[in-house]
């Protein structure tokens, strides 16, 4: 076994390219470990642990690229490092035609009418680019994460002072003027405006609305931290203001995990006396608003339904009736599913790619399932002692750092969740698997070939052990998405997977199955 490292000074590649080449390396014969990373302090630690370290690497800085390979022989390792260098070059040559602009300013020379900068570079560079964009009068959507809180506050104050949107950091999604940004879905145009401090929440609500025949005017993602005390809801409030003014928006839907009380206060103040109905889904918060300025809802589905009712002039109580009816229907289904379980199958196992769903499911399970664990605990759940192993009822967010370091988002790369699905299937205590599948731009373009065989295998594994394993999944998306939701749902149904229209419904069904199983 021998290691070979090469430091390429000042060579920068975006994370996708690095991951592509890292994958290339890991697939080569004779490789035991490899890394293609920028030499940040954290990465250096990782390299040290992997035995891919040397004086060269120690001297490298965060603008330098390190390629390290541990292989059967030093010769092979050195050869593969060179192969990786060639792989990296491939990318830079695919952009046919002239060279691309290398800076915001040269891009603006090419397109002076630009009015929005979509920024998804590494967090340590993103704030400076966002600032530049704001200074040049552009609205900003910051997909990047790892931006310091102070930087976020400074950017948002500056943006607000100039009447510019600063969506994010860590804003996964938005829809502006009908155009999906980053991880957004292709939804119908309409009159419901969304402000969300939760990316998956925005996707779920906008898709549900679109699938119910209504549409979205604008959907503004603020990033989850916006409603925390430190940021004070600067952009959340700003976005509410703009949607209240926007003639194309008739109903507002606000989505967030519970805002800080001070921020909530400001939000309620802001919508006081509003001429447009304001629906709010503040997950897990009773959002009691004595003044009655907002209509509080319990789940994303509830919020979407009520927004649809409001915009089509229907009584909101119709939404409650519909939800109640659906819940009753699920009761029968759950009883039937639970009836097929074996002795000892007791627990719900929720494996999620969308963070908001993890919270929503915990909210729904809070009073119904005892002993609920999560790596992203919310409300009364317990923190998972080991995110890699389930214990009793468990819901896992694969978007948390422990699963995403150096990997694409779990909505793109299913490998870790797939592995876990099979582990849960082997566990005799698993009563029901609860999953999400998020479609849309940015998400895995062709999910079925990666997901279906794993689900089939999971059920086969359980069957071989004499168990029946119900799998419940919600599919977030529309038929206009590049993946086409109805095609996906059809294939899942054919594979005997239970598909629900919303996570709230899927979670409720799975919780019910677990409840019956526990009796």
């Amino acid at each position: 076994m021998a290691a070979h490292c090469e430091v390429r000074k000042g060579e920068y590649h975006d994370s996708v390219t690095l991951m592509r080449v890292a994958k290339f390396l890991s697939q080569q014969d004779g490789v035991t470990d490899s890394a293609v990373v920028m030499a940040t302090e954290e990465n250096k630690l990782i390299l040290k642990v992997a035995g891919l370290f040397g004086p060269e690497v120690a001297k490298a800085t965060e603008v330098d690229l390190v390629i390290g390979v541990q292989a059967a022989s030093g010769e092979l390792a050195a050869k593969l490092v060179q192969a990786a260098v060639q792989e990296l070059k491939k990318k830079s040559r695919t952009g046919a035609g002239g060279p691309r602009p290398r800076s915001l300013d040269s891009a603006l020379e090419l397109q002076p009418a630009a009015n929005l900068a979509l920024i998804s570079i590494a967090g340590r560079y993103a704030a400076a680019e966002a600032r530049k964009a704001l200074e040049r009068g552009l609205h900003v959507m910051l997909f990047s994460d790892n931006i310091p809180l102070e930087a976020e506050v400074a950017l948002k104050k500056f943006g607000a002072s100039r009447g510019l949107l600063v969506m994010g950091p860590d804003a996964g999604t938005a829809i502006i003027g009908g155009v999906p940004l980053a991880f957004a879905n292709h939804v119908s145009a309409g009159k419901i405006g969304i402000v969300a401090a939760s990316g998956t929440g925005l996707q779920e609500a906008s898709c549900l609305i679109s699938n119910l025949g209504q549409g979205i005017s604008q959907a503004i993602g603020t990033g989850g931290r916006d409603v925390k005390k430190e940021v004070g809801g600067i952009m959340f409030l700003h976005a509410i203001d703009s949607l209240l003014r926007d003639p194309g928006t008739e109903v507002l839907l606000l989505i967030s995990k519970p805002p800080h009380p001070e921020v909530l206060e400001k939000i309620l103040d802001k919508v006081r006396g509003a001429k447009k109905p304001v629906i709010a889904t503040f997950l897990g918060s009773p959002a009691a608003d004595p003044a009655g300025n907002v209509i509080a809802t319990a789940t994303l589905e509830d919020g979407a339904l009520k927004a649809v009712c409001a915009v089509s002039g229907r009584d909101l109580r119709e939404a409650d009736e519909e939800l109640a009816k659906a819940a009753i229907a699920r009761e029968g289904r759950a009883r039937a599913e639970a009836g097929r379980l074996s002795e000892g199958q007791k627990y719900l196992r929720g494996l999620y790619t969308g963070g908001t769903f993890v919270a929503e499911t915990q909210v729904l399970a809070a009073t119904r399932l005892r002993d609920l664990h999560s790596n992203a605990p919310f409300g009364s759940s317990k923190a998972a002692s080991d995110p890699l192993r389930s214990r009793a009822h468990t819901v896992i967010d694969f978007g948390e750092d422990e699963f995403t370091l150096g990997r694409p988002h779990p909505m793109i790369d299913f490998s870790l969740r797939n592995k876990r699905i099979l582990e849960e299937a082997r566990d005799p205590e698993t009563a029901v698997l609860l999953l999400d599948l998020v479609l849309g731009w940015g998400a895995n373009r062709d999910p079925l070939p990666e997901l279906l065989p794993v689900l089939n295998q999971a059920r086969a594994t359980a069957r071989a052990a004499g168990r029946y394993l119900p799998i419940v999944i919600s599919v977030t998306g529309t038929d206009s998405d590049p993946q086409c939701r109805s095609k996906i749902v059809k294939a899942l149904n054919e594979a005997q997977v239970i598909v629900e229209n919303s996570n709230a419904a899927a979670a409720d069904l799975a919780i019910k199955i677990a409840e019956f199983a526990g009796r």
Partner: protein
Amino acid sequence: MGEIFEQKLSVINIGLESFTEPFRNRGVPFVQVDFKPGLNLPPELRERLAANSQVIELANRVAMDRILSARPALVGMGLAGDLIPGMRKTRILHAGPPIEWDRMCGPMKGGIIGALMYEGLAASPEEAERLAGSREIEFSPCHEHASVGPMAGIISASMPVFIVKNEAFGNVAYATQNEGLGKVLRYGAYGEEVIRRLKWMDATLYPVLKRAIEKLGKVDLKAIIAQALHMGDEVHNRNRAATSLLYRALAPAIAETAESPSQAAAVLNFINGNDHFFLNLSMAASKATLQAAQLGEGVEHSSLVLTMARNGTEFGIQLVGTGSTWYTGPAPVPDALFFKGYTKADANPDIGDSAITETAGLGGFAIAASPAIVQFVGGEAQDATNYTLQMYEITAAENNVYQIPFLDFRGTPTGIDVRKVVEKNILPFIDTGVAHKKPGIGQVGAGVLSAPPEPFLKAAEGLARGIRSS
């Protein structure tokens, strides 16, 4: 803020390219930025540069005016010892930033050994090496003596030099006669044939050329370079067209002034047999052009690069606005095509004053004009074009005389702005020859490289600190 809802969305995407798919799908105008983080300039210095951008811009405009209005011409020849300021028998000039004997690379040491033997100061390589290591010989950069030399860039007192005068400003730059390829002093070779060729150049080439130039009065180098760019040269790694044009200009005068037809033929054949004969003149012309930027008031704090030069150990630059200070960093080893039998392991780190051509908007900056040598940059004409296009991102102006036919006669990117280099982390692109790292072997290949970041970072820091102290 409501206005974005009423406008047509138009996006600049900085980062993941897959995010542009829905824009393509929806017909939303967008530009993808190939983001690369800037060089790591301390924030307070970056801010200082930003705060003083008007002062810097003004100085750059003054400097750029002078650079663009330069008129370099070959006006005569003479001996280095007689002409070059500060030149004496015990002083050897070399390429790149200052360096002492112990830290010199192989080819530079070889060139110095050769020069000491050529000057008669040492009888053997061993004696020359001892002498060079003693304190009796002084070493000094060509650039600090109004001179330039390719590769090792060795100039000693007895060597004949070209006089290139900037007729617009009167300043003068010097360069030796190019020796040709193979085992030559500039690549660190010092064998008998090297010294013999140098002696022939003194005895035959020099007097014939000197008389021919006197006869002509002058040769307009700016015009030759401009024409050569239209004929496939970038006048750094390719000088075939420029050499031919020079040959055409000189031939009648040589025929008339040579002592014999055989002498004329020997000189003309020598020039004809060396496609790089013009290189030393394109370098001197570039030097004379850039020197002008510092002649006179108004360029203090200019962020334009005055010099890029390498001594085979370090890469050094000077700025128009920071006097004669060198900013240096380790010289990289070029990516190259190697002659048969050699590999990158044989290559010396980058060496030579020839990057003065890039500094003046030629060489790698003009490589789009030179499709014949695209093998050096990846094999496709588009690669060469892209390199030139990228250099516009870091330059202050487009040349008013040097043009690139393929880019619809757009002026070459001219006047490197160190601020843009640092902010965009786009480093100057340089064509270069590659010397063997051991002295005495010579050239092993030719290729390209990007300048290293350190000198530019240090120069930007130096520039920023200088602003505060004034």
